[in-house]
Structure formats: structure tokens, C-alpha cells
């Protein structure tokens, strides 16, 4: 089957069986290996991407459900080699250590910031509760998301 979707703003046409995982389409058909596989069963969130702005686990989404929709991956965040506000905040606060959960965390963080919610600790914890990190204790990830959200609310 052939499916048309937008990936990081670019129109893409994919020939794949309808039940092929979005994760495999991204990584193996489109070469977007920034999205990671940690468990393959929706527990770890390493494969989080935005589907029409909502966070989904790409390991649980068959490509047939993505037809006509817009996908954002970690590769879609920086523009012309410049980190976006959330990426920069992760770098400053130390929110990325081994980096394997980072792409998924960034997508969860982007969705949280886009929601316009006040960057309170509880709300951020809730927003990233589907993304496991084994390195950071989450402290600096929460700091990074709060920092980027504040900067967006008070543009400088």
C-alpha cells in the first residue's frame, strides 16, 4: 500500500504494508534514526513522536493510521543547525545524558510546551510520565522543559 504523510513538514510517500510500524517506516524507510526503540511495546517512550501535534509511541502506530497526517520527529526540531529552545535548554541544564531517551523526551516536552500549560513541576512530571529515563533521575529534564516553557512565555 502507498501512504502519503508529512514528516517534519515535508510531504512523503511510503510504500509499506499497512501494519508496518511507524517506527520502522521512520527509521528504515526514511532514514530518520533519531527516533529510538527501547521496548517495542509502548512502555518506555523512546520512540515518541508527534502525530498531528499529539505525542504517540511510534512502535504502537501502524503506518495505515498515519495516512494524510503530520509527523514530527526529533530531526524536525532544529532549524539550519540551530537548536530550538527546548533542545538548547536540555543542553544547558544537563537534561541529556546517554541520550537514548532524549528524542522521545523532547517530543513529550514539545507537546507540553505547545499546550501552553504553566510550567509547574507536577504538570511536567505528568507530561513525561510515559517516557522512561534511567540516567538523570528526571530532575534536569524537568528543569529543561520548565526553562524552555518559561522562555517561550516571556520571549526575550
Amino acid at each position, binding site marked *: 500500500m502507498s501512504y502519503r504523510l508529512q514528516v517534519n513538514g515535508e510531504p512523503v510517500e511510503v510504500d509499506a504494508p499497512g501494519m508496518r510500524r511507524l517506527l520502522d517506516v521512520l527509521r528504515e524507510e526514511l*532514514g530518520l*534514526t*533519531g*527516533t*529510538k*526503540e*527501547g*521496548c*517495542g*511495546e509502548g*512502555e*518506555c517512550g*523512546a520512540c515518541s513522536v508527534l502525530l498531528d501535534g499529539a505525542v504517540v509511541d511510534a512502535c504502537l502506530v501502524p503506518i495505515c493510521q498515519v495516512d494524510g497526517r503530520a509527523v514530527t520527529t*526529533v530531526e524536525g526540531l532544529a*532549524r539550519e*543547525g*540551530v*537548536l530550538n*529552545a527546548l*533542545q*538548547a535548554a536540555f*543542553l*544547558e*541544564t*544537563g537534561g*541529556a*545524558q*546517554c*541520550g*537514548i*531517551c*532524549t*528524542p522521545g523526551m523532547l517530543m513529550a516536552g514539545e507537546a507540553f510546551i505547545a499546550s501552553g500549560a*504553566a*510550567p*509547574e*513541576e507536577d504538570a*511536567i*512530571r*505528568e507530561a*513525561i*510520565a510515559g*517516557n*522512561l529515563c*534511567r*540516567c*538523570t*533521575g*528526571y*530532575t*534536569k*529534564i*524537568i*528543569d529543561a522543559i*520548565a*526553562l524552555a516553557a*518559561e*522562555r517561550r512565555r*516571556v520571549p*526575550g
Partner: protein
Amino acid sequence: MKRASTRIAPPSRPAERVAPAAPALAARTAFPLRREGPAKLTGEARYADDLVFAGAWYGATIRSDDPHATLIAIDRDPDFDWSRVLIVTADEIPGENVVSLISDDQPVLVPVGGEIRHHAEPVALLAAADRSTLHAAKRRIQLRTERLPAVFDPLASTQQIAHFAIRRGDAEKGLADAELIVEGEYRVGHQEQLYIENQAMIALPRDDGGITVHGSLQCPYYIHKAMKRALNLTDAQAVVIQSETGGGFGGKEEYPSMIALHAALLARKLGKPVRMIYDRHEDISATTKRHPAIVRHRTGVTRDGELVAQEIEVVMDGGAYATLTPVVLSRGTIHAGGPYRCENVTITGRAMATNTPPNGAFRGFGAPQTEFAAEMQVNRIAEALDVSPLELRRRWAYREGDVTPTGQVLRESVAALEVLEAAAETAGFSRKRTDRRRASTSGGTRASGIGLALAWHGAGFTGAGETHLASVASIELTDVGAIRVLTASTEMGQGTKTIFPQLVAAELGIGIDEVEMAPQDTSLVPDSGPTVASRTAMVVGRILIGAARKLRARVEESSGQPFPRSYRDFAKRNGGIRIDERFEPYPGITFDEERYVGDAYPCYGWAAAVAEVEVDLDTGEVAVESVVSADDVGRVIHPVLAEGQVEGGTLQAVGYATMEEIKLADGRYLNDRLATYLIPTALDAPRITSILVEKPFSGSPHGAKGVGELPMDVAAPAVVAAIHDAVGVWIHELPATPERILAALSGASAPDTPGSEPGTRSGARANRAAPARGVDPRPEAPSDPLPLRAPQDKGGDWERDR
């Protein structure tokens, strides 16, 4: 989960978009940004599974399904088309059928006629051009085996992997003379490292007949050694290249050698690259875990609280093969007394083989197991003596000049009191403990508590380990005037690629961006030892500083100019130079490995933690609300990275304390998926405050002692102490699951509470009202005369879990 809402203050300099290397940003943070951070944040970083090699096949491992058996035959379904599948068995191993590490007991693949010792044991390898063929083929292989009797309980095992005994003074006499003896038995189970990137290796045949592997790993030269031996390769024919590594925590210290050999055997036969990428299920079910342990204590004290004798017995479950067990046990045994001065100590440690997958390295390496027991014991003694656990530690904690159980005189860099006071003060330990006693009369269905723990952690390898390793690290001034650091020390998130350039740049007087890091590729970098034991900053950092000093001297002697102004011209005139610097033993440090006497480590790091918990009295659930961890790292090289180590290690310890548990049946892990093996999410994680304490080590030019493992030793006993403070029962076995807490509360383990002499019960404790429902969660102490007995029947018995 109840949690105070904390608004995190925005920084003074708001910015919508910032370039990663913008000078203003670097200035604001004052420390260099993570070197490989931008690559990780943009998705450009290449982890093993991200690497593409044309024509690569997919590899898989056929594993035993018996815990103990003789392998009779490997049967292939004759109705399956095997022409599209490659199979490798043990008889095709060109070298020795051994995964080289400490002992030669573990085979790469069990041969037909050979002994299967655990249920996840590799027996044969398959490869196919596509995954569906591979999966179909896997189902068409049957192993014929003859079952042998299996042992799953280390206490029932007769096969000893390792044994250590440490004696100082006369513990027997000390106990006989003691006025109070407290006994305890403590148990800890398996813990999975659970790096979020699964194990992964890709092997490529080389033109010279050798093999190159790319993979997720901590120790390139361990794999290099294993490949040379099993594949019969020369130094040059075996090449190991680290890909970006998504966490290790000890779990990628040893098992990557096995996976690399498997991928290499397939690639060698196939003549094409082979990808061996584990899924989470295979990773949890087959790779190493933290060793389960049973630790028994008998401690003698005087009535006024002097520690006079410790008798400690440690039993670890090594699993089916030795792997790193002897050194894990060694570290666990040396640390088993905790950081406390005692004249009469006997510690015996033994590791027993069982028919379960081998246990191995995990952050802390034996110390978290035995220090959990030591801290439980100290807290229970404080209760029995009716003194504050903080006050008791103040009296007992090591000071400079004290002597450890191995007879090591702690000549310097002892910060037990500093970390203790820092954690207690920051957390408001004494005040909150008193307040809570007052508040607990109010009743309710939730009870809150606060707990404290203290730990020490020997820095670097045990005994003469570093001398045996004789690590080499190099700095090269290339002929185009670049400075390159060459080490085998891997980056797995902890910051190697950032702190090495920092140390070298500071020594050479140049900017950090002038210092390049060579890739961790055994064909390019020397063997600077494994990236384990919190040794990278302290040990390899020291070697690099030595190399940098030599390079600087060579250039300055020749040019007569300061290095920063002259090195580029020097390189143009004279060509490149490379300084290979070898580890020099720490002066005055000696250890007798036969008798286990002397300086077990060149120095120690010190850590204290205060945890606050809330326990739901209806469900037994524990919410760890906050942890303050104070860690003495010698010198902080990079505060953001060091805090990151403390925060991450603390959460792993909180998981160990409250939820991480492997259930076994017939030697097989039952919860071998991420849906069933639980680690803390952001909602489970406490607020973590890290305090970095600096008590430098004179043997390191930079004073650093390492940080990675310290927090892992200390948070779990602090959490269990807080649970006790909340509900009045001691949980003797990790994790403190709701089941165990409810069982303890219902009195299933009523004798848990250590007694004390009649009349020594404190008024404060007796006055503490039941937090809920009229059920007094704090059972009265048994009125037995001394000595006190540890409970023999505890909820959630460890053996019952199997």
C-alpha cells in the same frame, strides 16, 4: 501522588533560540556543555541500531530452555527451507570456546554433549537476510536435552565461586564482652540495569581475515581480548568500535563480549555484516543482573552506644558462571561493615553458583547490597539504644586515622561526617523527625517518615587491580597542530567526552574546544582499562594529566615559549608527537591479595542520604517524596555532570528500594519485559537534591575520586529507614513492596522490631499514636532478654519468590 508544586524560576536571560556553542550560553553556564550533547539532541548521534551496513543480515541466538541439562542434539525441522538461513554451532568456533573474563568457565555456545547451566544459555546462532525469515527459522529449531537437577537457592548450592574472609581484632571476644547484641538478616534480590538502549552489536568481516565490531559497550578491550581468544585473531585482526551508547550502569561491561562473539561468528561464516540487536525481552531475560545477596549481622555494642564488634556473613548468588562475581563479592565484603570504626570485625563473603543466568556488574558492584544491610543494622541499633540514628553515626563514622577491617589506615580524604552533616542539615533531618512525632497523632490513612543512611565507596579497582591493569592513555599533538586525547574510556552518558577535554585543556592552558577526542576504536586508542568502578575521572583522568604535563614540557623546552602560544608552530616545525602515559601505582598504597590485608583502595568516596516517604496504610504503597544526597567526590570537575550522576544513581537506588524486583520460576525470570519489570517514572521519582562535597585525594593531581556509584550505595537504606519512621516496621528485604509492607504491618513479621532491654524503650516512641484505623503499626518490642533475634519468618520470603 501528592507533590508540592514548585515553579522553577526562569533564567535571567530568556532566549527563544540559541545556538549550541553560542558564547553567551557557555559563559552563563560557566562549564563546558556536554561535548556530544548537540548530536544527541538532534537525533544525529548514531547508536548501534542506527548504523547501516549494506548487505547486513540479522542475527539471532537460540537459547536453552532448561536451567540445567545436557545438550543432546540441536534438531532442525526438515520441512523448513534452511537454504536461506545461516546456522553456527559450537564446533565452528575457531579458537577456544570461552568468553574470556576472570574464569574460563563460560562457553560462547554450549556444544552438543555439553552442559547447559541456565535457561537463557546460548546454544546456536542463526542469521537471515530479513527478520521474518529469521523469526520463522528460530521457531523451527528444537533442542533435545536431558534435564539435570538444578539449584536456585544460593544457600542450598554446594558450588562456591569465590570466598573472602576479613578479620581484624577478635569479633568473638568483642561480642562476648558486649552489653547489647543486635542480630539481623537482610536480603536483596536481582536488579536489572535497564539502560534504555538494548544491547546491540554489529560484526563486519575484515579484509585481513579478522572482524570489526561496532556496538553498545563500556569496555572495548574486554571485547578485544574475548575476540582474540575465541576467534583466534591477532591484535590487529580484532577491532572494537564503540557506537554511541545508551546507558550501561555495569550492564555493558561483560555481556557485550558474548554478543560480539556471536555476531562475529555469524559474520565470519557469512562473509557479510551481521546485526545482533537484542529486543527488550531478550535483554532482560539473558543478560546480567545485580547479584542477590543474603547478609547476616551480629553487632555488639555497649550500653552507652560504643561499637565493639561486628560479625558479618555475606552470601551472594553468582548465577551459573563466574563472570565478574569474585570482584563483586570482594567489593561487597570489604564494604560490608559500613563506614564505621570498629576494633573487632569478622566479615566472611562467599558467592555460590545457581542455575540462573549469571549475575554481574551493576553500579555499586556489590557494595549497595552489603551497605544496605549495614545501614539497616545501624538504624536498628539506634532504635534499640534509643539514640538518634544521626547521633549514632556521628559517633561511629570514620575519621582520618581510623583503621578499616582490612587494616587500612584512612590517612586522608575522609568525609563521612561532612556528607552526613550536609545531608542531615539540608533535609532538616532532626527537626522533621521531631515534628513528625508530634504530628503523627493526627491520624489519617497516610503516614510520613524520614530516614537517613551513610556509605563509603572505595575509589577505582580493588587492591592491586589498577597496577595489574596498567592502563595507558595518550595525548597526541598532530602534525597539523591539533590536540587529540586517545583513551578507551567510553562515554555512556556520564560525561567522559566532556571532562577529559576539560582536564587536558586546563593542564595545557588552552581552550576546551582545542582538544579533540579520538573515537573509542581499539585500532586507534590504547587500552586505558574498562569504563567501570567510577575510575574514569580519577584514574584515567590522572594518567591524562600526566601525559599533558609531559607534552607541555616537551613543547615549552623546545620552543622556549608558553605552550598555548607555541604548540601549533612546534607541530609545523617538528611534526606531530604522541605521549603514551602508563598508570603509576599510588604511592604508599599496598594490599595483600592473599590475606586481604592492607589498603583495599587508594581512597574512598563518602555519601549520605536523607529520604522522606509517605506510606499509604491501606495499600502499603510507598511514595518517596524527596531525597537529599550529599556525595564527596574529591573534586568536582563539572558540577552539572556530577549532579547528573548523583540524581540518576539516587533514582536507581530508589527503584531498588521500592519497586525493582525479578521474580523467578524454575530459574527463569518471570517479569522479563518492560511492562512487568518496573523502573521509576517521573511520577515515581522523588525531588532529588544533590550536594557535592569536596575532600580531595592527594594521589590525584586534580583531587577527583569518582562519583558514579556513590549515590547507589546510600539511598535505598535511607528509604527503608524512612518507611520505618512512618509506620514503625522494618523491611528486611528489598524491594519494600506494598505486599511486604502490608505483611509487616499486619504483624506477619512482628518480631521485626528489634527489642532492647526492658526499660530502655523511649517515651517518645511509646507515645507515638497509631497513624490510622486504630491499628498500631509499630508493634511493641518483644520482651525477650538479650541477645536480640532477627526475624526468621518474613513476608515475601525470597526463596518463595522463585
